[in-house]
């Protein structure tokens, strides 16, 4: 019964979002407050209804209701509870439901937290969100319905792909989707602004927190996915420029550009139409990303033919969303006049450079991901585009980006002093030179690019800290005074420092991966293996039984010199149901380097293949990403975003003369 209830809720939600996407926007055009207010009610109702649908499907998974086709195909009674729940979004239909649930969550959040928005703008934003919702709900109900029943329920399900049965991957899709869908708010604001023909500082101030929140979620989501790849793969790769990864990386790149360009709109009232365009592109790429992965086009352009209904629907939806918004942009954008003037060398100029490089970077990833598909569709030669391409095109674009990132925040608005900024950054020059020298002496035979990368990371890290200490006046005034300044500094400033510093940490982690050491040996029980300065001794391999798998569990003692460091237990798991083997690697980290051990197959003589890697600074890749997201969150906590708070306060002090405003 729950399943029918969920199905019914989803259909009801479709009707509610149809109302949400039409009535408020007509109300806004006719200045009818009652009609505009419908948007808020509908958004909340749709959230409740889709939430019920989501809960119903989750319930079906938890109780293993094998009368539902979706549950049969993706679940099994033996599965641990966590993976029964994450199985809900571990498949096409369920993930689409999660997507639309996130969308309704965002719309409801806009409805609740936008009391300070002009009613017309709020109505239009909610209407645009409603339109996206209608498209997705139609898609789910007509082509990917997770609530369909099976005529004859089997005794048990097919289970979930073993590689998806992992805690890291269980929460990867929700974060990623929250990021993708969160950008729909910026998109809705952009379209609403185009309809109104007005973009001002207030608009930018409303959009920024939403963009920032989505960006944080996307950063975490991508980092989780790459971390999962790192510890599951068995050899420690963490990013492959795989089309599926690129699909999530593109919205991240443009979204990062969007965060920065909306600062310029807010502070300097210029770059308006560019920012609107970025908001549209960011969400469009999120849509493309969702569908690229979901439609199967990436494996082959001919995948569309296997399910033409889905493929056609996806194309129509993309066409309507992207084509519609870009047409509106083409018609309305020329009327958006920018005000603030600035010299090329200025904070604004640096942000323009940031936008240029990030957009070009995104275009490069787009080209590398879709050009082979395009050639294939044109019956051209079949191509592979892998890491060597991106290393030669994308990475060179990011080098000037990192250099400029150190200088940009040092420049003043309107007209900056480049030479002065460079002089104040002497610490960063010293740090970069030192890092290069140290890297050169400590490592042997690493590629020169890795040393340049480490120098860049040191440059950025030192520059960020130099800017921060300068801002709070450290070393220039008494400690208590600079502490006071640090407290009174807007949180957004601290957030920027943290996020940029996270980038420096990330760059260091990426660059140092060139200095990996590896040892792959066939080892008998009691045998030894040497990697970097560590000795690994294979003590035993024992059979273990898990809830839905059997495993071989190795016991490996790690020593450095005569001192025992630790004992690790890498495993090979065999999932009987799917007849698939996965690997549980053991990673010993001290946050400066990882010692990575994976157990391979046994040969006829009972010797085991052991793969051991020593990976300096690799944990910094994810630590950097987490610091970036943390910076975003700190910035998000800035009270300036809660414009309502400031307004209420102003109302309270309205009797006083408005001095000092």
């Amino acid at each position: 019964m729950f399943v029918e209830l969920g199905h019914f809720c989803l259909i009801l939600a479709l009707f509610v979002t149809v109302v949400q996407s039409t009535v408020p926007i007509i109300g806004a055009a006719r200045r009818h407050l009652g009609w505009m207010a419908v948007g808020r009610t509908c958004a909340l109702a749709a959230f409740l209804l889709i939430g019920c649908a989501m809960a119903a499907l989750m319930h079906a998974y938890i109780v293993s209701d094998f009368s539902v086709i979706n549950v049969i195909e993706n679940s099994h009674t033996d599965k641990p509870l966590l993976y029964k729940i994450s199985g809900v979004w571990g498949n096409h239909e369920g993930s689409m439901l999660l997507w639309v649930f996130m969308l309704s969550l965002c719309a409801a959040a806009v409805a609740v937290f936008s009391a300070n928005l002009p009613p017309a703008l709020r109505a239009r934003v909610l209407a645009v969100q409603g339109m996206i919702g209608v498209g997705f709900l139609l898609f789910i109900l007509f082509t990917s319905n997770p609530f369909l029943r099976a005529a004859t329920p089997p005794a048990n399900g097919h289970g979930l792909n073993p590689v998806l049965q992992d805690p890291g991957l269980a929460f990867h899709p929700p974060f990623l989707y929250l990021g993708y869908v969160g950008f729909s708010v910026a998109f809705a604001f952009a379209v609403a602004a185009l309809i109104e023909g007005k973009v001002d500082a207030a608009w930018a101030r409303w959009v920024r927190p939403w963009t920032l929140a989505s960006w944080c979620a996307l950063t975490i989501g991508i980092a989780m996915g790459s971390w999962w790849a790192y510890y599951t793969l068995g050899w420690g790769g963490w990013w492959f420029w795989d089309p599926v990864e690129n699909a999530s990386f593109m919205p991240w790149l443009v979204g990062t550009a969007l965060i920065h360009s909306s600062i310029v709109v807010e502070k300097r009232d210029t770059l308006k139409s560019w920012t609107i365009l970025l908001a549209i592109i960011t969400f469009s790429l999120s849509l493309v990303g969702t569908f690229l992965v979901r439609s199967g086009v990436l494996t082959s352009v001919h995948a569309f033919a296997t399910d033409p209904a889905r493929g056609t629907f996806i194309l129509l939806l993309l066409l309507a969303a992207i084509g519609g918004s870009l047409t509106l942009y083409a018609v309305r954008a020329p009327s958006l006049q920018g005000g603030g003037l600035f010299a090329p060398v200025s904070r604004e100029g640096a942000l323009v450079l940031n936008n240029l490089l990030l957009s070009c970077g995104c275009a490069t990833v787009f080209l590398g991901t879709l050009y082979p598909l395009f050639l294939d569709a044109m019956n051209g030669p079949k191509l592979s585009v892998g890491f060597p391409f991106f290393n030669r095109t994308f990475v060179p674009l990011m080098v000037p980006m990192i250099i400029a990132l150190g200088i940009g925040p040092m420049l003043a608005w309107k007209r900056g002093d480049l030479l002065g900024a460079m002089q104040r950054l002497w610490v960063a020059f010293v740090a970069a030179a030192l890092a290069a020298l140290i890297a050169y002496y400590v490592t042997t035979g690493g590629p020169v690019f890795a040393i340049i990368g480490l120098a860049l990371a040191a440059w950025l890290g030192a520059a960020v800290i130099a800017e921060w200490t300068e801002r709070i006046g450290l070393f220039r005034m008494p400690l208590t005074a600079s502490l006071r300044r640090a407290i009174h500094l807007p949180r957004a400033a601290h957030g920027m420092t943290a996020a940029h510093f996270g980038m420096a940490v990330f760059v260091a982690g990426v660059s140092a991966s060139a200095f990996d050491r590896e040892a792959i040996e066939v080892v008998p029980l009691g045998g030894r293996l040497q990697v970097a300065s560590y000795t690994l001794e294979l003590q035993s391999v024992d059979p273990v039984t898990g809830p839905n798998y059997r495993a071989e569990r190795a016991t490996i003692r790690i020593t450095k010199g005569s001192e025992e460091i630790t004992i690790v237990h890498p495993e090979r798991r065999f999932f009987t149901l799917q007849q698939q083997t996965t690997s549980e690697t053991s990673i010993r980290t001290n946050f400066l380097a990882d010692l990575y051990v994976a157990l391979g197959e046994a040969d006829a003589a009972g010797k085991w293949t052991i793969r051991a890697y020593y990976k300096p600074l690799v944990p910094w890749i994810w630590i950097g990403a987490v610091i970036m997201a943390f910076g975003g969150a700190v910035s998000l906590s800035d009270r300036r975003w809660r414009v309502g708070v400031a307004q209420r306060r102003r109302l309270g002090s309205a009797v006083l003369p408005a001095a000092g405003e």
Partner: protein
Amino acid sequence: MRPLILLFLLLASPVGAVEPAERLADPALESRARGISAELRCLVCQNESIDESHADLAHDIRVLVRERLLAGDSDTAATGAVVARYGDFVLLRPPMKPATWPLWFGPLALLIVGAGCSLLWLRHRPQAAPAPLDDAERKALETLLREDM
């Protein structure tokens, strides 16, 4: 989305990469073989190099590369032998030819066009003169200026 899932659907076992038995005795040759392998695609996998893949085909190509190197081939010749058998699709670094020019030169062209447009915009954008002050603002300005003095 969940990266690499497609990749794993096609993989027999996730612990990939070179098998100890395949390796060449000469470390210099072996490191050249690793370098070549990293840029060759495993044809039955999703965007994975033969150096990372555990598929049988990847194993065959790894062995082929090593055989060519042992026979005294240069890196290019060894790669060429693989391309001759499996086509350009095997190269993770797409070859430079007219069909791939948009791919290879696209990013640079975009950067140049983008930079040009930004510069043009910076130079020639409509210099909207600030709106003239209205009476109330002028009065406020005068008060401020007087206070300053």
